[in-house]
């Protein structure tokens, strides 16, 4: 019997999309699914929405000190570790969000559990978990076998396609657990700044993304792409090379170490298609590649390819769209 714990995240008053995906994965794999949430007194947990999901148990860890410092997740790590000490699970799932990338390995090492990050496939064969995860930025895929007896911790890549829809006829039991954090706490968050502006469409939510790379050659070129993105009602993204060059803010970086996006249309301009970049965008429904090198790797994942100099192509692309939308 597989008894799985999903470590959930609350975003904007809702269970995050990634956490929801974890529940779907767990539902397929396990006999029993529990969800644990670390909450401060200010968190608004949408319990009515959550308890009708395919979850058997919901554990709400109530941690007053989370109000004070959530910065580097010392308190979340502590609370989850205390919780895990009191319960037995065969499998602990995090999503490979920023939260999961930090808290999952911390919890795993603190509780002496084995850990694999950024898994893109997970299934069960007798008493083994079969895991698939990309390595070398996605150049290759590695397959692992991990015994269900050692209750491993995995983080799962977000945006995986083809997750079955779930039908549910259970109502979860809810347990609240109070946890006091009195450990020494030598590192604290002092300030947090957000680059998200309200008017703009978030990359993660965008249906259309126009993304630029080193091939654009300079900062000013991004204004042209921005214009195109606005025209299409989409968002602007970039490769790491363009961000590292200082042409555009790093928060717009797409890829293995940037954002993972899944738009309907991803228009890449002057991007070579390195595996680390594709790690963040290859799950887009339709990729358009504009590149003057016919052998560029990006064409291998593109549904539509345009070989040529981006500058003139984009100018005429923009004016054609303006014409088309007037009709």
């Amino acid at each position, binding site marked *: 019997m597989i008894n799985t714990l999903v470590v959930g995240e609350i975003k904007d008053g809702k269970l995050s999309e990634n956490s929801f995906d974890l529940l779907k994965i767990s539902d397929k794999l396990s006999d029993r699914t529990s969800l644990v949430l670390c909450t401060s007194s200010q968190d608004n947990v949408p319990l009515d929405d959550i308890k009708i999901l395919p979850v058997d148990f919901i554990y709400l860890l109530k941690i007053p000190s989370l109000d004070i410092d959530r910065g*580097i997740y010392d308190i979340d790590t502590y609370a989850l570790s205390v919780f895990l000490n009191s319960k037995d699970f065969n499998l602990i799932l995090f999503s490979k969000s*920023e939260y999961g*990338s*930090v808290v999952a*390995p*911390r919890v*795993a*090492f*603190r509780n002496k559990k084995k850990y*694999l990050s*950024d898994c893109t496939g997970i299934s069960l064969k007798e008493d083994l978990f079969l895991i698939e995860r*990309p*390595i*070398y*930025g996605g*150049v*290759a*895929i*590695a*397959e*692992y*076998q991990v*015994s269900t007896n*050692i209750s*491993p911790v995995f983080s799962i890549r977000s945006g995986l396609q083809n997750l079955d829809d779930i039908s549910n006829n259970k109502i979860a039991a809810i347990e609240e657990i109070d946890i006091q954090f009195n450990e020494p706490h*030598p*590192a604290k968050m*002092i300030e*947090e*700044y*957000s680059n*998200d502006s309200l008017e703009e469409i978030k990359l993660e939510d965008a249906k*259309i993304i126009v993304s630029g790379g080193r091939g654009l050659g300079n900062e000013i070129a991004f204004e042209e792409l921005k214009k195109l993105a606005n025209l*299409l009602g989409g968002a602007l993204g970039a490769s*790491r090379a363009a961000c590292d060059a200082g042409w555009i803010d*790093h*928060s717009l970086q797409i890829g293995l*170490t940037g954002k993972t996006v899944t738009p309907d249309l991803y228009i890449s301009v002057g991007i070579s298609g*390195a*595996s680390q970049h594709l790690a963040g965008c290859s799950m887009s429904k*339709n990729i*358009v590649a*504009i590149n003057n090198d016919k052998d560029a790797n990006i064409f291998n*994942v593109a*549904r*539509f*390819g*345009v*070989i040529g*100099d981006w500058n*003139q*192509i*984009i*100018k*005429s*692309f*923009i*004016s*054609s769209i303006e014409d*088309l939308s007037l009709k």
Partner: protein
Amino acid sequence: MTIEIAVLAKQVLDSETPSHLFKINADSNNLEIEDNSAPIINGFDLNATEAALRLRDEGHEVNITVIMAGFNFVNEVIKKTLSMGADNLILIENESLISCDSSFTVEVLSKAINKIGNFDIILAGRHASDFDNGHVPIGIAERLRLPIITYASDIKIIDSILRIKRVIPSGYQFIESKSPCVVTVSNEIGEPRYPNLRGIMTATKKQPKIITINDLEIEPPSEKEINLTKVFIPKINLDTEYIKGDDESELGRNLAMRLKEEGLI
């Protein structure tokens, strides 16, 4: 007072090599590069070395010790951090250190850090670009019970308190930490410096110090709890439809029409 900085660095295959040059080595169940090009120091670890050197540039008295755990070290490669300006290099070589289960690496590096001495700051890259896991520095922090601050893009020391700018998906945070602590560094910190001639000369003369796992009184793991069973290079076979046109203007126009036709814009 001298600030003792450890920088953890890993020798890896260059994962930015064009993907068609990678092939599978069936014996080691790992990747290799067709033209046998030299490995590199993991890029983020060079960012970490850069972060340490910048503290020196800012006037702090620092002693930088690079610690590398791995196997089959290449002499010219491992000296890179010395030629950038690091003071000491320590090598721990053992075949089990390239296993996919990093708990052994965590144990080895934690014990080495304890044995070598009193580090004020332990820096590492945010992850290694071969297995892309990013859990060794985090594991070390947990084992040594030190604060762990990930994804640093700037590190300042003010009155012996570290002030770290930490990159998060929505922007950034400022974290203040007492030392000792573990900090992982991201590429947002900026390009690692190129070694200058003097640096290269100094590095040629310096000999790395070797520590063995016997020195650390550690046995390699006898039983594997995580088994890497297969590595393969996925084939992507998408039928790309190339937009036709006599010049760039026509290409742009035809692309717009084609996407409109498909209802994509």
